[in-house]
């Protein structure tokens, strides 16, 4: 019997993996991907709740999240491209002009 708890654990684990990816990796592209991972984990949570609560609101929110994620990826990758063109590197540590 698969309970809500199972799904919640799973999505929590996925979310944590995503956070680790954002913290650990220096490649900008990979960071963006970890971000996507986190968003997916959240989507999973929403759908799980929709299922166990019997309301479709969860699924609708997921739709919106996907829209936002898509938009964010588009813009984020555009920024990554620009940064690469300017600095020749995709290393996030080198994008530090705003330091003190």
């Amino acid at each position: 019997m698969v309970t809500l708890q199972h799904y919640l654990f799973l999505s929590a684990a996925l979310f944590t993996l995503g956070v680790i990816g954002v913290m650990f990796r220096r490649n900008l592209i990979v960071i963006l991907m970890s971000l996507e991972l986190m968003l997916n984990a959240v989507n999973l949570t929403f759908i799980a709740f929709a299922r166990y609560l019997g309301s479709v609101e969860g699924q609708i929110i997921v739709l919106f999240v996907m829209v936002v994620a898509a938009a964010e990826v588009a813009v984020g990758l555009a920024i990554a491209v620009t940064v690469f063109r300017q600095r020749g590197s995709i290393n996030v540590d080198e994008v530090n002009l705003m330091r003190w």
Partner: protein
Amino acid sequence: METVLFYILGTITLASAFCVVFLQRPIHNVLFMIITMIGIAGLFILLHAEFIAMVQLIVYAGAVMVLFLFVIMLLNLDQLRLSHDSRAARRWVGVVAAVGLLVLVAPIFRAFTPRGGTGTLMLDKAGQISNTEVVARELFTTYLLPFEITSVLLLAAIIGAVILARKRSGKTAKG
């Protein structure tokens, strides 16, 4: 049956996610990401969200990941080797924090019993009404306004992406 499927799909998804985070070459990361997406789509279907699952496959796995691939190919990033990370120690703090988050939240899940719900999922009529119709029923009535606003959001994103990624003549930054 459901349990078995859940565990299979769950394992696949988790393993792929692990690979996404820890593998070195970006191409590998992207490919494993696609597998993760498919896994999650499977889980969606398990959760009676067929429409969303399809949207996931089409949009995420089909478009977003392909976009990632394009960018990697375009900028020839696969060959890039990053210098030694001078601040690795700091990152461990982040890892600890993330795991800590997980640990913190876990106990709640145990005691969690979902309550409430609007019954709009119409699981009892699963045979007669498709998930698509169920979603549409809510989306175009109660949530019509957010729906329209997201189209504006997408417009803004498109314009932003186009402007940002344009190849500039010389080095002068425009407006």
